[in-house]
């Protein structure tokens, strides 16, 4: 297989997996916090998490998965699953935080509307879920965009191994260092294109039902 295609597909796969893992935990948490009203501590923690330094997260998982680390026996260091897990930690606060903020901004209006029309709390919650589709799309796009463009954690945990863990961002860094600027620019444009296409697909399919 063409190496550029291989790297692109790997980037898509590992970033998609990381986004899905983060969404599995972040979406329910964000919906719950947004619907019930998050306290200051929860908001502060999530917003702080949005700025987690990728290299610190990478280092944490390096220690965790290194041979002498607590999970060293799993042999995950320099593998794609380890990269996906580390990146999901970076995407999680983004997805949960954006979802929380978006849902919270709608929660009171939806609750008041449903209650004033004679509906119950369950109907209010279900309506809030339906009203939050665009919020979820934005949260997923933010999470995916963050992980596919991330280079610190993926380098530390993945090691940028050719035909194994090399992704678009690490390939751009490598080509730049080698002085292959034209190749680096093509890979960079490819990265931008992939992000644009995935975001576009999320908007088209995620908001399809919305008026």
């Amino acid at each position, binding site marked *: 297989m063409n190496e550029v295609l291989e790297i692109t597909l790997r980037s898509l796969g590992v970033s998609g997996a990381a986004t899905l893992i983060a969404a599995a935990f972040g979406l329910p948490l964000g919906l719950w916090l947004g619907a019930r009203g998050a306290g200051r501590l929860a908001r502060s923690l999530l917003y702080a998490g949005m700025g987690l330094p990728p290299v610190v997260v990478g280092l944490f998982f390096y220690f965790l998965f290194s041979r002498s680390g607590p999970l060293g026996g799993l042999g995950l260091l320099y593998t794609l699953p380890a990269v996906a897990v580390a990146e999901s930690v970076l995407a999680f606060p983004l997805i949960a935080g954006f979802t929380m903020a978006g849902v919270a901004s709608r929660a009171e209006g939806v609750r008041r509307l449903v209650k004033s*029309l004679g509906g119950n709390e369950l109907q209010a919650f279900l309506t809030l879920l339906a009203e939050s*589709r665009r919020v979820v799309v934005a949260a997923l796009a933010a999470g995916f965009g963050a992980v596919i463009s991330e280079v610190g954690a993926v380098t530390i945990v993945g090691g940028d191994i050719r035909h194994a863990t090399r992704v678009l961002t690490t390939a751009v860094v490598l080509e730049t260092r080698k002085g292959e600027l034209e190749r680096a620019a093509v890979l960079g444009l490819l990265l931008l294109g992939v992000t644009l296409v995935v975001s576009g697909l999320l908007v088209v399919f995620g908001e399809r039902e919305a008026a």
Partner: protein
Amino acid sequence: MIEAEGLERRYPGFRLFLDRLEARPGEVLAVVGPSGAGKSTLLRLLAGLEAPDRGRLRRRGPAVYLDQQPYLLERTVLENAAFGLRLKGWPAARARVRAREWLERVGLSGLAARPARGLSGGERVRLALARALAVEPAALLLDEPTANLDPANVARIEALIGAERAAGRAVVLVTHNLFQARRLADRALFLLEGTAVEAGPAAAFFERPADPRTRAFLSGAMVW
């Protein structure tokens, strides 16, 4: 019909208390007063959106509350109008038929397929009214429905309120517009700092207010 007795709601630094209040079928009760008097809180209590700390509240039939800035769902105009009926378990097709009738009455039938979020201010209020009226409430609780609207939309909405009164609905109208209160109200209530200062038939309330604070408010001498 809504009846309230000894209704009390407390917030830090604020207390709303009403000894007695009635919203009668076929009548518009205008609630006037300066900002922060407790008018919106009163409406939310009457609607059951907030629970009173003390007092008795009796509603005969459903009462629908219309917010100052009504929340429109991210759906079409028609789906918004049918929303209350869907909450009540109406089948989608039947709810849409009824919703179309109400859109016709508020002059929005031509916009049924449009996204509701794209409507103008006046259209948004008319849609919210159609959505509220589609569920056939016994009482309509309106919180400044014409604030910041152009005269044409104000006239349309006032005509709708008049028609609902004629149809036998109880209407409680919170408004800052004293001219509107005069035009629409059968009875009026003046709230000041959470307390009912004066209430009575609209003609007497506006022409011969008994309390000096009401006189000051109606004449514009009360600055707030």
